[in-house]
């Protein structure tokens, strides 16, 4: 069973904290130690960002980290090299988040195959739309047991949510509000209503909420009705100001306040 499913099906009251970080940032070779520290700090899942030159769904913080990572020399090949022994030390689910073009250039099948070899459990590819995935790539992903994670937003229609739920395998990535990553951290009535609405749909896949979560309060708000939440920009900002030495403290603050 894929680690993502294992993790999310654990019978526990604990809410899942998933952390996004950009591979190769702040320094090219920080990737594995950040992953290890995150797991040790209590994080339940990790999204490893494969940096892209034109990350159009990302806000300024993640954009800047991607630019720096590319300058540092990060490439798809380098990342796979860094991760080749990751399963010797790390057990939680690992997901690669990347834009479609670098994956396409690598070759979708080669990419999936490599992910399986390394022990990557899923992919989040924001600009690979559902229908293209379904028509062209589903069988490849399944062949290598890679879960493709789909997003929904407050604008996604009920019909489409049900459809996405029907083809999803691991979890549904709920974008908290209409925004690129890194936007404001307070959830208002509109969002909580949206969270409730989705919860009430009783989908077969668990939901993990991302975008706009930055601290304990917003983490708790997001996970009231959802299985977990993802923090990205806030973690990158932490790395910007504190470096890689105090990851434990950051995660601790999120989880326990």
């Amino acid at each position, binding site marked *: 069973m894929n680690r993502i499913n294992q993790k999310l099906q654990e019978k526990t009251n604990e809410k899942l904290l998933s952390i996004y970080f950009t591979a190769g940032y702040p320094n090219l070779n920080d990737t594995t130690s950040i992953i290890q520290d995150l797991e040790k700090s209590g994080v339940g899942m990790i999204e490893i960002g494969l940096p*892209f*030159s*034109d*990350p*159009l*769904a*990302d*806000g300024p913080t993640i*954009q800047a980290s991607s*630019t720096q990572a*590319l300058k540092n020399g990060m*490439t*798809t*090949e380098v990342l796979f090299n860094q991760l080749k022994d990751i399963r010797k030390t790390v057990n939680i689910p690992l997901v690669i988040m990347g*834009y*479609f*073009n*670098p*994956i*396409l*250039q*690598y070759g979708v099948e080669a990419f999936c195959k490599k992910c399986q070899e390394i022990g990557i459990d899923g992919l989040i590819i*924001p*600009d*690979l*739309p*559902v229908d*293209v995935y379904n028509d062209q790539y589903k069988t490849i992903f399944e062949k290598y047991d890679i879960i493709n994670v*789909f*997003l*929904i*937003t407050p*604008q*996604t*229609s009920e019909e*489409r949510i049900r459809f996405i739920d029907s083809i999803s395998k691991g979890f549904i990535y709920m*974008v908290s509000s*209409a*925004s*690129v990553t890194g*936007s404001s951290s307070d959830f208002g009535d509109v969002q909580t209503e949206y969270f409730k609405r989705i919860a009430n749909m009783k989908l077969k896949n668990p939901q993990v909420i991302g975008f706009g979560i930055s601290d304990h309060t917003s983490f708790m708000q997001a996970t009231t009705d959802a299985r977990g939440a993802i923090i990205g920009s806030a973690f990158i900002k932490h790395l910007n100001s504190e470096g890689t030495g105090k990851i434990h403290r950051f995660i601790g603050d999120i989880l326990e306040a």
Partner: protein
Amino acid sequence: MTYNINEKGYYGEFGGAYIPEMLYPNVEELRQNYLKVMAEPEFQEEFNALLKDYVGRPSPLYFAKRMSEKYNTKIYLKREDLNHTGAHKINNTIGQILMAKRLGKNRIIAETGAGQHGVATATVCALMGLECIVYMGEIDIARQAPNVARMKMLGATVVPALSGSRTLKDATNEAIRDWINNPVDTHYIIGSVVGPHPYPDMVARFQAIVSEEIQWQLKEKEGTTKPNYVVACVGGGSNAAGAFYHFLDDTEVKLIAVEAAGKGVHSGESAATSILGKEGIIHGSKTLLMQTPDGQITEPYSISAGLDYPGVGPMHAHLYKSGRAEFIAITDDDAMTAGLQLCKMEGIIPAIESSHALAVFEHKKFQPEDIVVVSLSGRGDKDLETYINHFKL
């Protein structure tokens, strides 16, 4: 067999809508409505009336006598430079603003390179009383200052794109981000035949008026609706799409697409997308783009802000791949020389983008009886400083 788009939104293997889910409702709304809306008689009427009375269409098809003598062939210039705001871009923004109004949008965003699309968007927003935000690369803001001033006069907000090469590609990223953040009230007026389906097709249809006019104008002048060649510069490809449109499937009419070679195709400072590009995804569309082996998008270079783009519309990727169109790459220097020549021989100052197309005559020999229609996509008022500095006038 057609070189036009298929019902799935692809030109051959190029096109589609590679967009994040956040954009799905917006793009889907557009996809479901654009053909229906465009077919409405009231839409057609309003669109055509504005093209005539506001834009000043038809734009002339001008026989360039002195140039024709020099190159010993029949050269016609399709005068999109005479359109209101000075380029072909307004054909599309007029269409899209009418579309946006019918979709109930009240906030308009756009990206711009040369500033012509930004001005054309700011213009139609003023005309309709809608809010307008234009994203423009910091480098382009500097080199196309007159157009920045025009957008301000028209009441638009110009937001600098500070990332990447700080040119058109990055402005497009910013515009897409804005759209993601404003999915309900906002329409994104893309300025070329790029972006996710249905944009390439919708923009091409709005620009198709160019080749429609070429047909009847040529009939009047030469007794035939068919030129031997149609030549157009290609940034994203909208002026070329418009000039080619009604000839796409008539292979008797040869199509020539001119790209910007910058300092030389292989100099590392170029925007000759089709020659240097590989298949990939840029701005929501599968097409040819300049990229590293690793799939990172390359920062392009051209002296012309409107051609300084690492991708090309999917229609053009298909025209290239299928061999339907000939692709030529023209350097900065050759384009500038061709532009100055048009000034001195025909009294027309072309946009530097258009100068690339005009350089075809130094590059390729035509027959005396050939009818060569060149898309003069815009006027050079925005480029005066660049020309003056380049030639030290």
